[in-house]
């Protein structure tokens, strides 16, 4: 009985170690992807110094809440690994009104804008559902990068 308990504990510990190891590896790979593939696209804006990156699979969503100040121009860049397909994004104000929807604007990966008054927006990113019949859903890194410059 005691031996079985030890084996179960060992299995649970190994499972936790595997998840921790996989998480660290994925996180490092996402950071590299963002630095190499996403950051160059934020120019001529200055990125805001924070990395908002997640690993998503088919059909999953991620969102970012951020304040945008009057007097600045902004770029919101949504950057995703190719295997995820056409990742879309929309910008909503705090009342839930959509102020920008990427599918309605020919699927750009960034949006440039300025606000007349300081505003908080929610950037909502959606990974499309896969049409594949494979049991393994495609997954990859998604990053929301915010850049600013003097307006």
């Amino acid at each position, binding site marked *: 009985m005691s031996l079985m308990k030890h084996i179960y504990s060992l299995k649970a510990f190994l499972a936790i170690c595997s998840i921790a190891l996989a998480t660290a590896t994925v996180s490092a790979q996402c950071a590299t992807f963002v630095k190499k593939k996403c950051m160059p696209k934020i120019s001529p804006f200055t*990125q805001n110094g924070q990395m908002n990156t997640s690993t998503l699979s088919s059909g999953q969503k991620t969102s970012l809440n951020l304040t945008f100040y009057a007097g600045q121009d902004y770029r919101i860049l949504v950057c995703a690994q190719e295997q995820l397909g056409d990742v879309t994004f929309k910008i909503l104000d705090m009342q839930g009104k959509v102020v920008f929807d990427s599918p309605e604007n020919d699927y750009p990966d960034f949006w440039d804008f300025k606000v*007349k008054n300081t505003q908080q927006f929610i950037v909502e990113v959606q990974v499309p559902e896969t049409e594949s019949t494979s049991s393994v859903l495609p997954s*990859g890194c998604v990053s929301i990068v915010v850049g600013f410059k003097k307006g």
Partner: protein
Amino acid sequence: MKIKKIPFFGFIAISSVFVACSSSSNDSASEDVTDSAVAEAKVRDVNAQNVFYSIPSPIETTSLLKAAGAKYDSKILNPIENVSNYSTVASKALNLGVYGSDLSFTSIYDQTQESMLYLRCANKLASGLGISGVFDETTSSRIEANMQTRDSLLAIISDSYLNADAYLKENGQPGVSSLIVAGGWIEGLYIATQIAKKTKNTGIIARIGEQKSSLENLISLLEAYKTYNESIPTLLMQLNDLKKVFDAIPVTASETTASTNKEKGLTVIGNGNTFNLTPEQLKQISDKSSEIRNKIIK
């Protein structure tokens, strides 16, 4: 039993080497994420609900202060001599944020000598947190080479903070990263309130009122990591006290409008919220932010 322990310790040893390698060779890491790794990470993402809370960078808020007409005043910054006072992880992280704001302030006002001194403070604290390759000699050389080009200078500072943020998140320390962000935001608010107190500049006072939503985002960010570091719950209590003052600010809200200039590729968002800060509320914010900031830098 012995037979069963051998593969277990073997696994731990291999895992340790694997983790060490992955954290020390980030630049050469493959861009392709393996299916098995992703399958495990999926669980984490679903649980975290995939919601990020971001705070404007110190460079952005300092730029706004300058645009509003603020004058440079070195006396309100955290003295560089204080850098040796910070021994805990939390005090190093918070003050890395504080010095980051001060570095942004000196750089935006072209104070070359002060910028180099604040860069050294940031370097010392980043090294103390085990963050390698940021605010180091390479950064210092890049800054020296770009002293005359303010935009490049600000981009270098932003890159350094992004790299620090990425390093900490890659290495399982997002709570430390959130403390750096918090320190930077609090110092930015402190600088703004000190200037507003002296000058009564209406542009700066308006910028202070607008920090209401950033404070809400900062609290949400810290809430997500409150179990990572014992200093976070204390800081959250102080920030929630500050939030009570901000919550009392009357907000005039109007429906947002959007118009796009297709040629320029720029959308202008009209209307939105206006924060009507009273002199008494400004004083309360100023007092509360000074209290929080002075506890951080002591």
